[in-house]
């Protein structure tokens, strides 16, 4: 019966850590954050390759904490290393069988063949790692991690060392493989799209500190604070002041303007996040339905062609000087005569505004 993974880790040196995470059986938790944030360290602590000063790692049995510190080989983890760490002197089959010390020797080869077939490597059992492509090596690493029959599967940037096309294929394979796995899966990634595509929950880490845990789409739409929003590379973050609450809405002062946003339990100065998808350009020829919502006069600073889309940067007289960035189809930008220096009006749709308390 698969158990949930709980980990609380605290340390000050050599890598500062203050992280608590929970991952249910069958759930995939993505650890995201900038390089050097401590994502891999968290993974290594779970596997027992790094020791936090204090805390607890528990998956059914306690692996770390309360005077216990199990050696890595006594923790039932499967770990896919960033560069795979395949044994170069062993064939693919032997690499997978090496993780089957818990099985009767007679059953190992057949089980390893099954596992390699599951990761689409049937026929390549006798190849050595140097004779396999990057994507094939990654699959061997995945099969070896599963061969352990782990209670927790850990993936350390498993797709970072392969090209884009291979990455997309491997991601699809992982999504498929997951359906047959019922253990907690923790994946380190710096790719938010990867987290969005694969993970159920996302834990943002910065300088060893856990900042927010939420489903990826939820965190991108409603980051807990401005720091989280910036780390997620979100634009359009402004300062505003809460004027009051009316029914479902909170009224804000933003520079010379007043805005309505979904109700939030906040007062005084707050940070305001405007989703690019909530920016509606008023058409010059005829008005449309959303125009009553938060109209904002603006001046075009830049129109950047990105393929079929245009990324538009507007000066919205933000007191902090921040521009408003959004994208719209190139033809819409042309039709509305968007060009640097031109004046325009946009609406900030209420539901796309997100108020972040300052703490």
């Amino acid at each position, binding site marked *: 019966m698969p158990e949930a993974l709980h980990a609380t880790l605290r340390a000050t040196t050599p890598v500062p850590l203050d992280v608590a995470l929970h991952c249910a059986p069958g759930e995939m938790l993505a650890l995201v954050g900038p390089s050097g944030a401590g994502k891999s360290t968290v993974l290594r602590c779970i596997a027992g390759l790094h020791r936090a000063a204090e805390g607890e790692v528990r998956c059914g049995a306690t692996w770390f904490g309360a005077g216990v510190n199990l050696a*890595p080989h006594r923790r039932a983890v499967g770990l896919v*290393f960033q*560069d795979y760490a395949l*044994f*170069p002197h062993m064939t693919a089959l032997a690499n997978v069988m*090496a993780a089957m010390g818990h099985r009767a020797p007679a059953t190992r080869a057949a089980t390893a063949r099954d596992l390699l077939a599951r990761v689409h490597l049937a026929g390549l059992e006798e190849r050595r790692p140097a004779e396999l492509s990057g994507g094939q090596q990654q699959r061997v690493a995945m099969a070896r991690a599963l061969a*352990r029959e782990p209670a927790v599967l850990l993936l350390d940037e498993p797709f970072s060392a392969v090209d884009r096309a291979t990455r997309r294929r491997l991601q699809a394979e992982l999504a498929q493989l997951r359906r047959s796995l019922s253990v907690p899966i923790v994946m380190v990634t710096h790719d938010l799209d990867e987290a969005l595509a694969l993970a159920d929950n996302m834990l943002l880490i910065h300088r060893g500190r856990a900042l927010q845990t939420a489903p990826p789409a939820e965190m991108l739409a409603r980051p807990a604070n401005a720091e989280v929003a910036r780390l997620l590379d979100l634009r359009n973050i402004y300062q505003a002041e809460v004027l009051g609450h009316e029914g479902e809405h909170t009224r804000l002062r933003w520079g010379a303007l007043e805005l309505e946003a979904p109700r939030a339990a906040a007062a005084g100065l707050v940070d305001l996040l405007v989703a690019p998808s909530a920016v509606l350009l008023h058409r010059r020829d005829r008005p449309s339905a959303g125009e009553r919502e938060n109209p904002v006069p603006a001046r075009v600073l830049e129109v950047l062609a990105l393929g079929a889309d245009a990324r538009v940067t507007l000066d919205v007289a933000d007191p902090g000087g921040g521009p408003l960035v959004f994208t719209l189809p190139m033809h819409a930008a042309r039709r509305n005569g968007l060009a640097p220096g031109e004046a325009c009006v946009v609406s900030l749709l209420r539901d796309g505004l997100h108020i972040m308390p300052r703490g």
Partner: protein
Amino acid sequence: MDWRAFQLSVELAFGTLIILLPFSIWLGRLLATRRFPGRGFIEAAVALPLVLPPTVIGFYLLTAFGAGSALGQAWQNIFGSGLAFSFEGLLLASVLVNLPFAVQPIQNAFSAIPPALREAGATAGMPPWRVLLRVELPLAWPGIATAAVLTFAHTLGEFGVVLMVGGSIPGETQTIAIAIYDRVQAFDDAGAAVMSAALLGVSVVALGITNTLSRRVGRRRRDA
């Protein structure tokens, strides 16, 4: 050809290997994988026989083997005979002067193993001894074999320390290198030539094996 001296040299070489190799695997791996205070000092001490004149090493060993030292005294009490000018003393001296030839190739071989491989072994459920047997030793073996060949060849050819510590007692401490010296002193050029050629042959073969193996270490490093 002085077969007694040749046999003694081969016995000395094998004896040195049997004692030195397991120790060097332990020490080489320790130096390659751990950072600890005094590590630089140990590395320097291991390299010392490379730079010290054999007579200096021999002098200190003789002093240490003598009945006036704690080691010599203890040996005398346990085995009833002195260490100096005995095969056992020669063996101990040979182990010490061969330290750099054994430890350094082994240390380099272990250093070339990516640390992630050890960690991968552990997370694959392999206890440390199994990681050593299944992962580390197979990857380090060209370095270990190099160490063995170098130690063997160097022991056959060692002269200065052997002369200082062992003297030249036929059947006890007269190795082939000493025997060649004695032949030359006795104007037996033919005898010296045969034995010199034999040593030359052994050395060339040893270096050939070593070079082949060290290329293999390089190849493995790229594979990993």
